[in-house]
């Protein structure tokens, strides 16, 4: 958390303002339209997503690549590679 990740996403999902369970529900829908190996960036404001997104990725067979936090700690960027 905190360090800039040098990852180029193939798609970006904006879930800012949404809370549990919507970030995970929308991430699942969005990643379904990607090809295996492609990377999705999820941008959100739900602090619970810091635990939820990696757990979702693991369970759903994707690879959680990492996350960054914008200054102020209110906006999070998660990077997930489709399995």
């Amino acid at each position, binding site marked *: 958390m905190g360090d800039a990740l040098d990852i180029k996403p193939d798609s970006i999902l904006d879930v800012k*303002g949404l*809370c549990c369970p919507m970030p*995970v529900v929308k*991430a*699942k829908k969005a990643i379904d339209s990607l090809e295996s190996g492609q990377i999705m960036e999820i941008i959100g404001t739900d602090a619970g997503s810091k635990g939820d997104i990696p*757990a979702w990725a693991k*369970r759903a*067979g994707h690879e959680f690549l990492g996350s960054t936090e914008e200054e102020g700690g209110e906006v999070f960027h998660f990077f997930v590679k489709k399995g």
Partner: protein
Amino acid sequence: MANRIAIIASKGTLDMAYPPLILASTAAAMDMEAGIFFTFYGLNIINKKKYANLKVAPIANPAMPMPVPNILGMLPGMTAMATKMMKGMMEKGNMPSIPDLIEICAESGVKLWPCQMTLDVMSISPEDIIDEAEKSCGAGAFLDYAAEASMSLFI
């Protein structure tokens, strides 16, 4: 054992309708099988006539932050007031409504079972149950599903 969560929803108040639907929709997003058995007042959560208007009562619910002493919760209008407060809280947090969450669950393959006994005992017509629900069933059928689940919850 299947990668499956089996949930019993037994309460029909607004606050208790959220947890089973949030857990089931999340489980489905995590590629788990999820099923909810709606029994007793929990059946209101999938009752067409009721599910958009579930209520929460402040009386005997000291956890609910009301601007008046708890005993006044017995006064007429207090349940409506508490319900409005809670819906306001949910909207502010961008939380989906109960009908929206039901739709998300159904779309993502969550099984929604009405309890046959509750339909009979409370004289509820199967017509009143939302179209997204499965055919009604009993405890035996639910337990058969739950016996293969890695998680079972009673809510």
